[in-house]
């Protein structure tokens, strides 16, 4: 039951010259949002740019009584629309359609949840971590960034009881290199009898590497993909991803059958077009 809300900007925290967190007054969206869902955002009024942009719902904002009043987006500027969102100011009106898409399904104990985030791929995990914490599922966040300055909201996750494993490309925080390296070691170290469900979001090569590890170690794994999306509602067939279904592989619309997919079902060779 998505709604389209002319949301007012109620906060914009610029984290780095590239990343910001944009807070939007959008009660109707916040109310029904589930972990991993997204919104389609009109980054400017008028026709330039014309189309909306998809963003994961980062945080659910609540008032003093705990009632959901809005959402925040973790935005990385990569082009026109994300630059506009970076520059947005309090009081700007930003149309916001959602919540959209299939959410993550948070796993229950005794299974553990391992989240794997690369860069802005952290976005869908704040809400997932809350849902996992509420179930008492123990969780680990494998979080990779380019450098220490590009890692955010760690205390939010540790505050929920998550274990953090950090990597950076330049070694300025945590282990130097890919986030899949410590993940691989952790998978190798874990007894097959102890269940783990993995959740990954980030650059396509990272998600693919996680999917490969998942296959090798036979762990259920869900990825949140980020193809170009024209409508977010299943109307345009622009966002298709090739997945294995009974009877063969098919292009399915990731805005309504995703963005979260079982990593084992994704035909990775057919993935193209995202900016990651």
């Amino acid at each position: 039951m998505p709604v389209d809300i002319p949301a007012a900007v109620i906060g914009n925290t610029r984290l780095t010259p590239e990343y910001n967190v944009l807070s939007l007054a959008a009660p109707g969206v916040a109310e029904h949002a589930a972990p991993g869902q997204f919104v389609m955002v009109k980054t400017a009024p008028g026709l330039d740019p014309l189309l909306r942009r998809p963003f994961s719902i980062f945080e659910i904002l609540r008032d003093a009584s705990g009632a959901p009043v809005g959402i925040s987006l973790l935005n990385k500027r990569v082009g026109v629309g994300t630059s506009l969102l970076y520059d947005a100011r309090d009081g700007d009106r930003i149309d916001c359609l959602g919540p959209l898409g299939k959410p993550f399904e948070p796993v229950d104990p005794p299974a553990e949840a391992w989240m794997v985030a690369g860069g802005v791929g952290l976005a869908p995990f704040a809400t997932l971590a809350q849902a996992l914490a509420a179930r008492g599922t123990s969780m680990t966040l494998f979080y990779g960034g380019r450098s220490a300055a590009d890692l955010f909201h760690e205390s939010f996750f540790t505050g929920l009881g998550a274990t953090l494993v950090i990597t950076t490309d330049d070694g300025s925080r945590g282990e130097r290199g890919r986030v899949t390296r410590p993940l691989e070691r952790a998978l190798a170290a874990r007894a097959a009898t102890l269940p783990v469900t993995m959740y990954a979001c980030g650059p396509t090569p990272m998600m693919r590497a996680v999917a490969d590890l998942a296959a090798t170690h036979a762990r259920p794994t869900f990825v949140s993909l980020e193809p170009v999306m024209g409508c977010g509602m299943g109307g345009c067939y622009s966002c298709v991803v090739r997945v294995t279904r009974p009877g063969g592989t098919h292009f399915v619309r990731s805005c309504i059958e995703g963005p979260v997919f079982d990593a084992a079902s994704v035909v990775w060779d057919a993935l193209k077009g995202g900016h990651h």
Partner: protein
Amino acid sequence: MADLSVKIGSLTLKNPVIAASGCFGYGLEYASAVDVSALGGVAVKGLFLNEREGHAPPRIVETPAGMLNAIGLQGIGVHRFVREKLPELRRLGVTTIVNVCGSTIDEYCEVTRVLSDAEGVGAIELNISCPNIKEGGIQFGCSLTGTYDVVSAVRKVTSLPLVPKLTPNVTDPASFARASEDAGADAISLVNTFLAMAIDVETRKPKLTNLMGGLSGPAIRPIAVRMVWECRQAVKLPIIGMGGIATVTDVLEFIIAGADAVQVGTANFVYPTLWADMIDGIDKYLDRHGIARVADLVGKMER
């Protein structure tokens, strides 16, 4: 409250605002956000006889005030449509217009036959104008005899209102309107998208995997309005106009230019809940101008 109803052959639409084919899925996708039965009609995604994969992504690219698409008519085929979608559309009270595709005249006829035997199809929109596929479509739509032949062949197999959808990628769309009229069409719809392309200058590759795509959205509106006006001068048939409609004003512009009804495509991607305000806005305009029926506004441009 003005009379907003529109006649397209034997079909009466509640109002002139139709969701454009390929821009509204099979209609059901929008049922959670929109009262789809309140629309004048829903033109569903183009259907061939069998399922189709469509093109490899990326399938769309944004352009100034518009977008290119090369979806390649991914679809579930007419049989699954009749089985899986049509009953629900009927249940919801949707006025369903089916966009019919074919690689051959036989396929157009066969798809139409299946739809004519089914219950709940309001009209057939003959897609002879998709710029994104090699076989079928545009090869008929860019030739006058091709248009005549496919329309008259399909005419023989159905009594449903038959609406060939014309391409803008020709010198004289009005001549295609006349060919359609001669071949027995009940109405025409136009425009489909403009053949176009975009290149990524860093990679030097086309931005669409398919190389070319169709341009839609507000960018094309002034050309589409011109073509609707030209067709209005050329034929008596009802005209379903489209191309870049995003506001009530745009709807009215097409109606005044000569459209009996309109379709909204790309703008639905941006504002999927625009429908109620748009329909209401037509009513308000008519009341404000003292016009009793929307039909009285059609083609009423003054010089």
